[in-house]
């Protein structure tokens, strides 16, 4: 057993070779667990808006809004994330004519991928509300958009929070895929240290599994607790 290898490189696992300085964007060379978390947080932030847009489009009755959204959701959900990452990493340069660093291209892949799942969450969340809510809102004279913004979404979004947290957990786990295209996040730092030391593979991988586990498990248990709390305030159909 060579746990001292893990101990000696533990700071590298946590933040890699991250440097802070006064030059925009103030943080450079992010790595390790920090990079994983930054990727996941940025990913879920952008994916939220994309997912919201496509989820609501999918609910729309207009075919020119609904079908593009159905197409996007079904295609993205049918393709492995690794494939998407390759698409954006190897093929974006050909399409756009300039190279995109691994961090950005994997972030785009995560956003597009998670967006499709969030769209489904949004759709399910809106559909889970009793239809009387929308009918009553329309009945009081609100337009469809107003009814959505002021009546349906505030309730639906609250019920969706646990699902968002679960999606965030899965995205945190999925950031490990960015290792394949050389983003220096937690998994890649582990592989680097493993390749350098050669004698402590099991210890290193157990350590990073535990690091991921701590982050994800805290979030999962939070979402479970929230689910219990939120179920008390849910509007119910007759």
């Amino acid at each position, binding site marked *: 057993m060579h746990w001292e290898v893990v101990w000696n490189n533990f700071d590298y696992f946590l933040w890699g070779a991250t440097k802070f300085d006064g030059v925009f964007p103030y943080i450079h060379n992010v790595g390790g667990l920090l990079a994983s978390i930054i990727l996941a947080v940025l990913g879920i932030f952008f994916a939220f808006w994309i997912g919201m847009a496509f989820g609501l489009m999918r609910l729309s009755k207009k075919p020119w809004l609904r079908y593009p959204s159905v197409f996007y959701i079904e295609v993205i959900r049918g393709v*492995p994330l690794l494939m998407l990452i390759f698409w954006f990493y190897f093929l974006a340069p050909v399409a756009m004519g300039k190279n995109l660093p691994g961090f950005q291209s994997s972030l785009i892949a995560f956003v597009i991928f998670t967006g499709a799942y969030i769209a489904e969450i949004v759709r399910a969340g809106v559909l889970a509300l009793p239809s009387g809510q929308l009918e009553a809102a329309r009945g009081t004279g609100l337009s469809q958009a107003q009814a959505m913004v002021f009546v349906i979404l505030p309730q639906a979004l609250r019920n969706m929070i646990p699902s968002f947290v679960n999606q965030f957990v899965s995205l945190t*786990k999925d950031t490990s895929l960015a290792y394949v295209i050389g983003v220096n996040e937690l998994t890649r730092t582990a592989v680097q240290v493993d390749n350098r030391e050669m004698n402590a593979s099991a210890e290193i991988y157990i350590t990073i599994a535990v690091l991921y586990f701590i982050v994800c498990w805290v979030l999962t248990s939070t979402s479970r607790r929230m689910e219990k709390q939120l179920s008390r305030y849910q509007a119910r159909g007759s």
Partner: protein
Amino acid sequence: MNYNFEWDVVLSGEYAQWLYEGFVTTMQISVVSLVCAMLLGIIICVMRMTPFKPFRWFALAFTEFFRNTPLMVQILFWYFGAYLVIPEGIMTWLNELYVFVPGAFTLFGHEFVGEWMLLNVEFFSGVIALTVYTSAFIAEEIRAGIFSIPKNQLEASRAVGLSFTQAYRYVVLPQALRIVVPPLISQSLNLIKNSSLCMVIGVSELTYMARQVESYSFRGFEAFTVATLIYLCISLVVSLCINLYNKHFMLQVKY
């Protein structure tokens, strides 16, 4: 965008053969892992529901740990770090083990029923990782399905004189099964998609082969398009299965 598409490079000859072999490997690793994951998942689920505390703790720890760690790390662990949990004797035995691999290559002129070959360690590690990861999810799905049957079903069947086993066998499980099947089908789709991660340890499945074609021929667009379309077809078939199942077997039961 300046790019000349040359589809025939990828759609014929050696590269097409590679992609086809990749598809076959993907299906092989998925099917083997799915069968193992179902068995392990059922075992874990049963352990989780027995009254014997240590079993429950073990099952709880198992599901929580493997659901909350990335599959990528698990694959790397089972490939590079398994020496820590598997005794050396078994490792040596595995490295010299001959297994019977049924051949599925009949499309491109090859026609063999199967042969004995050395166990492919990459494939084996991939199967272990996928099995363990998926079984944790399957155990939770099954448990959720059983819990969705109201408790008074069990109580009522106990009251009419069925034994505990009979009550589960004839009343609870048939109802739970109907609820559990659709999520299990979508888990198997997830498993097929997740099997693409096995490329990092060198299992030559579809994504790996698409990469291979890309690096040999510089025809990345075509190779990735073909691979993506194959994955899409698989997922379409699977979601068709779920829809058909829902149509034919999903009875709306209100409690």
